[in-house]
């Protein structure tokens, strides 16, 4: 009786370790560089080809892509955030306030608001850093909801009406390449960071913080750092959006900003940031394309989410990567 078994073999360059290999031919070079060049090329050449409305959608892709990357980064350190809206909102309000009360130009208020938003978010979450798993997630879910109520109750920063009529970016192209450039920088930069020793420590905290502690590393310091980075990235997205829509108000803490990035990361495949980006690049345009269905839009959107997850549970990016790097063949077992 002979039976057959499916065997999986790594394609091309056998990767003994993540970063030790020799490039032997231009084909191998292309094999490795291809997946990295593709997004860069898309970002450079796609926007001018789009209609003004789809250009706007691209902006959203950039913003949600950044939020998803920031979410994934945080998840690498074991902090599953259900409240990206907190980071987004902090950055957005930061930019709004700097613009309204200090008259700062967008190019200045953007970075300052990102850093400021990151700081404030980190400070807010500092007391709950020792919470783990779903408990941490809950706090992040609740904080933005609470901030909305605080703004509502205390009527600060324009209260329920928010601040409108803020300064716009000089041109659509600035908008476009600023956010997409930031997305690419975040994607490649943070991928690099995660692959380095520092990133390893973050992942260590996620998998087994006890073991990291017993290496003499203060996990809270690292968690706080990861939190700050992620929050600043989210804040960047928020600050950017403020100057696009010239408005900031309570809805910047809306649930959508929390849920959509997670959906993007899950659909794309969490873990490597690239999945999160890909997820955003799929979900945001999808959601826009579905506008044609009118009231059914969100219904279809929900159904699509379910379908994606059920069909490719590991995430689209992980699936594609697996297929790209491996081939399968049948071998006989005696």
């Amino acid at each position, binding site marked *: 009786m002979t*039976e057959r*078994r*499916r065997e999986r073999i790594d394609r091309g360059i056998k990767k003994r370790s993540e970063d030790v290999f020799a490039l032997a031919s231009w084909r191998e070079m292309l094999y490795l560089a291809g997946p990295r060049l593709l997004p860069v090329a898309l970002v450079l050449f796609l926007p001018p080809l789009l209609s003004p409305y789809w250009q706007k959608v691209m902006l959203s892709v950039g913003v949600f892509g950044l939020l998803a990357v920031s979410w994934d980064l945080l998840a690498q350190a074991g902090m599953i955030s259900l409240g990206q809206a907190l980071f987004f909102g902090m950055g957005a309000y930061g930019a709004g306030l700097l613009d309204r009360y200090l008259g700062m130009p967008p190019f200045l208020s953007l970075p300052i608001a990102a850093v400021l938003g990151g700081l404030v978010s980190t400070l807010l979450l500092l007391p709950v850093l020792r919470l783990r798993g779903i408990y941490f997630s809950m706090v992040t879910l609740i904080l933005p909801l609470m901030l909305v109520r605080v703004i509502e109750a205390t009527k600060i920063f324009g209260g329920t009406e928010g601040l409108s009529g803020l300064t716009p970016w000089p041109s659509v192209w600035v908008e476009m390449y600023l956010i997409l450039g930031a997305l690419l920088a975040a994607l490649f930069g943070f991928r690099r960071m995660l692959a380095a020793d520092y990133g390893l420590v973050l992942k260590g905290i996620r998998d087994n913080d006890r073991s990291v502690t017993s290496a003499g590393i203060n996990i809270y310091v690292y968690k706080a750092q990861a939190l700050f980075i992620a929050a600043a990235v989210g804040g960047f997205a928020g600050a950017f959006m403020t100057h696009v829509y010239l408005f900031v108000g309570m809805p910047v803490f809306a649930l959508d900003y929390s849920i959509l990035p997670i959906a993007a990361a899950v659909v794309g495949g969490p873990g490597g940031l690239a999945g999160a980006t890909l997820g955003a690049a799929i979900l945001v345009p999808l959601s826009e394309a579905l506008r044609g269905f009118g009231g059914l839009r969100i219904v279809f959107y929900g159904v699509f989410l379910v379908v994606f997850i059920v069909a*490719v*549970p*590991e995430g689209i990016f992980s699936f594609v990567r*697996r297929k790209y790097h491996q081939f399968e063949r049948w071998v006989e*077992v005696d």
Partner: protein
Amino acid sequence: MTADLLRIENLMVFFENALAVNGLNLTVSEGELVGVIGPNSAGKTTLVNTISGLIIDMAIKEKRKGGERITVYGAVWFRGEEITRERPDRRVRRGIVLCRERHPVFPDSSVMENLKIAGYLRRRAEIRKTMDEVFGLFPVLKDYRRRKAGFLSGGEQQMLAIGMALVARPTLLLLDEPLLGLSPRMQESVMAAVIHLNEAAGITVLLCEQFARPVLPVIGRGYVVENGMLTMSGTGAELMDNPEVKAAYFGI
């Protein structure tokens, strides 16, 4: 087919492309106490997981996560019926109960509740009776019956795990490294209990251990497994007399 209670034919288990169990043949008859001895990573755990069906469950879960990673070939027969592809819960109903390695207990439940949960397929009166037996075997557990299992020490959890397997009233009991982390005194009582179960209660036992010293003297028959392959088999005494076994497992 035969009167064997358990029969394994030409079993092969792959994890991805790595072979964990390679062409293993093994039989256990009713009422026997059989030992499977082997060093680390010999494939003992993989073997008992295959018998208990856990591997099927693992394979399904792996598949859901993306790709088929685990493949099983060969056949497992229980009382003349092939059960190779049967789900684990069906096998428990047949009486195959596994006590997994490294103290598998329900950490958030009290000791008492752990035992009750283990008796999922048993009637209430039966559970109560076996529970008393377990407490007789491991008196510590009785003292700690209201404590959460997760707070017990490593050895205490191991005792509880064995106790839980007993509550499930197996016909074939699979023990995976039951002596792990037990003090010498506890090791002795556990082995005594195993013999007692085997002889008095008539439970067939398949016991996997790499720490052979307390095991070999008491088993009826034994298999030695290395690198997923069978290297030796025979009665307990035969194995003990074998110079290779002596060198490898008794340090002589």
